[in-house]
Structure formats: structure tokens, C-alpha cells
């Protein structure tokens, strides 16, 4: 487990994904996010600046989060997407669903 959660405001957190989100820590990631949703968080900014590995299990956990918050008018956005993460996002065409921002600051501006 190498992700950390940082609260921006009552509704919004940024998750610093860390080096890897894959089959080894995906269920921890999912549980941590669910806890945030239960506490009232609706918007998740995922910081991928350091992420070298995102496998399909990791991506699946992000999708679960998306399906959980989108009916609650929440959103999941990506910030500072690294090259390996970009490859996965391109392959799965998920940029159609997850807005991307070049930096955390840009994401902070856009996510209220």
C-alpha cells in the first residue's frame, strides 16, 4: 500500500496514488475510497505523478469508485498523469470518462 489520501475540503480529496496501483493494493485502495465516500466525499482527484504501474485490477478499482460516486454527482479526475498511466488510459479509451489535468493545481481550480 503506497497511496496516501489528502483532504482538500469536505467534498474533495486528492489521492496520491504512489508508485503502483495493481492487484497487490487495489482492494486497499477500494476500501480507503469507500470509507471516504461514506464520510461524505464526492470528488476524487487522483495524482498519478509518481505512478509507474497501473494494471487492470488497479484500473478496475478506479472504475468501481467512479460507478459509486457518479450517481451522487461526484467525479473522479486524473492529475499529472505519468506516461505508463497514459498508455493504459489510451488503450481503454477511458479519457472519455475521466477528465485529466496537467497538474494538481489545475485540478484544484476545476474541481469545486
Amino acid at each position, binding site marked *: 500500500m503506497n497511496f496516501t489520501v489528502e483532504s482538500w475540503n469536505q467534498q474533495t480529496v486528492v489521492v496520491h496514488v504512489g508508485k503502483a496501483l495493481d492487484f497487490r493494493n487495489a482492494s486497499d485502495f477500494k476500501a480507503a475510497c469507500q470509507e471516504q465516500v461514506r464520510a461524505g466525499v464526492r470528488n476524487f482527484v487522483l495524482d498519478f505523478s509518481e505512478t509507474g504501474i497501473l494494471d487492470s*485490477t488497479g484500473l*478496475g478499482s478506479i*472504475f468501481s469508485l467512479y460507478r459509486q460516486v457518479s450517481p451522487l454527482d461526484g467525479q473522479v479526475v486524473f492529475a499529472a498523469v505519468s506516461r505508463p498511466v497514459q498508455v493504459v488510459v489510451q488503450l*481503454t*479509451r*477511458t479519457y*472519455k*470518462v475521466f477528465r485529466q489535468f496537467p497538474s494538481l493545481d489545475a485540478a484544484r481550480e476545476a474541481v469545486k
Partner: protein
Amino acid sequence: MAQHSILVVEDEHTLRRLLEYRLSKLYRVRTAANGEEALERVKEELPDLVVSDIMMPRMDGFALQAELQKTRETRAIPFIFLTAKADENSRLKGRRTGVDDYITKPFDIDALLTRIERLLERTAIFQSQLDVKIGQDFSQKLMPKKLPTVEGYSSHFFNNPKEHGGGDLFDWTEAEPGTFYITIGDVMGKGLQAKFYAFSFLGYVRSTLHGTLRETRSPALLMQRVNQVLMDDPTMEETFASLLLARWEPAKNELTYANAGHCRPLIVSPSKAEVVPYSDIILGLDPMAEFTDTTLELAPESAFVAYTDGLLEQEMEGGAQLGEGGLMDIIPGFYREDQPIDRLLEHILEKSTLPEFADDILVFWLARQALRQRQTPRWFSPFGDQADRKA
């Protein structure tokens, strides 16, 4: 790994507290004073093992055990009886009802701990063997027993499911004479759960295919239906899958496909490999997702090659993954091999930092053969060669 949970059932207060104290150093312990209370605890949460007295007021140990035998979830919970009665009668009765172990009071706590450990170990081994067996069973059902055989074409298939691999799937069907539908997908997740979801998912794909073919032959529309099923059916809520659906009509040498976020297939010839670029979003995310059909014509001596991501994610010398570009660089060299996939995979392993593939590998190779060299000059042929000529 999470701690094992143990339920201690003992009417005598002091002994119950003693057991709770000693066992809680190693396990998560809950207690009950009789069989009825024990059933309540079991209902709250299934324990991994039960340690129970026999002689208790309300419901005794035998009655508790009999009760747990009645339902499927509780039947397999290992059971250790503690009793002051060292007499043969209760021992024999215990054996008859399928007790897993039996310790007479006064007992040595270390002996009890050893037995608990042994039983938990045995259960874990049994469980993992069962997982492997079920996993293999699913894997076999997710893969074809044979391949389509069509004159002028050759097809190859390779699949190496890993015990802790993912939910790769492959299927084909000749929906009407001369029209084949090919399905390649990957359900997200790992291990038995992914295989199970892949198995259910493939069932959905098959039934959608059969149910919809009367209305449409379009892979894109079929894809849309499958996506809707994933979005609407609560049991499939946690299922996300990449999927490639292709309609293959060998008489026209045409493939029409829709791609939902799956690895992009390649068109391979002896001299080059090209990616088939168009794809849409992965399934299970967007209820309004739309998909598009792309039709391509397979030239003589070229192959349509589709695969799952385990191939691209293999770590190569230098630490980088093989990747789409890496695959495209090497794959034409294997075109003329009798077993192109086997040779390709051997080559990748030679250049990999790992002795074997880290993930599931699935490759499907559909090659249109070169036009035959004719004995007679073409202009003498009374029939032409519609099947081989470009439309």
C-alpha cells in the same frame, strides 16, 4: 493475512475466560456460553473454527454441531470438542457426527493450540486446492476446444491461464454458414473472482449474441447491448471488461469488428505489422457509450492477430515492458513459422528478464494463406477464383 477467527463455546465462566485469554494472543476470539448463543455468534460472522464444550445447558455441543451441519456455509467449519467426559460413549458419538477433533479435560493448552493450528492449516490447504481446481475448470470453459477451419485460412490459438491470473476469455461461433463471430476479452481483476466474473460475462456475451443476431449483424450494436447488460444488472456491477468482437466472413476475406478498450489487434504479414487502430471505451463504465464498426479486408498472406494485455506487460531486458511497439517489431519474423505463436512466445521469453510469463497469455492468430500457385494459366480457368480475389 487477516487473523483467523475462533469461536469458543464453554459454559464454565473461568475456563471460557482462560481460553479467550490464551487464544486471543494468536486469533480473533469470540465467546458463547452455550449452543444457542454460539448460533447467534455464527450468524453475526462465520468463524474459521469452533472450540466447543459438550455438556452445556440450553443447547449442548452435539446439538450445536448438528445445527451447523444443516447449512452449506457452516458445514465445513472445523470443530474441536472439549469435554470433561473422557468416557468412550461421548467419544464414539463425537466420531459419528463428524467431529474434526476431540480433546478431553483437563487438557494442556499447548496441545489445544497445536490442534487448532493443524486444523486451520488443513482447511487452508483444502481451500487453495479447491480454488485451483475451480480456477482450472473455469479457465477451460473460457477457452475453445477447437478452432474454426476454413479453406484458405489457418488459425492458431495459445492460452496459458495462471492460477492467480485474470479473466481472459476467448470464444467463437459460426452463427450462420460462412459467418463467424470471434470474441476476445479480459475481465478486470485477478484470481478466482476474475475467472468467475469472466465466466458469467462470457455467458452474457453468448446469449446477447444469439438473441440479437436476428436483428443485427453489427458487432458495434452487439457491443452496445453487452455494455447495457453490464450497466443494468446489479450482479455485474463490479464487472469491467475489455472486449473485441469481430464478425469474420472468409468468403469476402472481411473482418468487421468493434473494440471496447481491448488491446488493439494487429495485421501481420511476413514483412510488417500494422495496428488496427480504432477502438471505443471499455465496457461497464458509461451507460451511454456508443461503439463503431470497422471493416478491414485481409490480404493474401496476412494475419489478424488479437491478444490480451499479459503479452504486452511482460518485462523485457532493460526493464521496460514489451509494449505494442515491441510486439510489432518482432512479430513479422514469425509469420512463416508452422507454429507462429509458440515461436513468438519463446522468443519473447528469451529476451525477457523473467523465466516465464508473469500474467495470463492469450493469442489468437487468423491467417489468410497466400494465393495458390496455379498449374494452369489463369485465363484457362473456367471458374475464376472469387473466394480469393479482392472484391
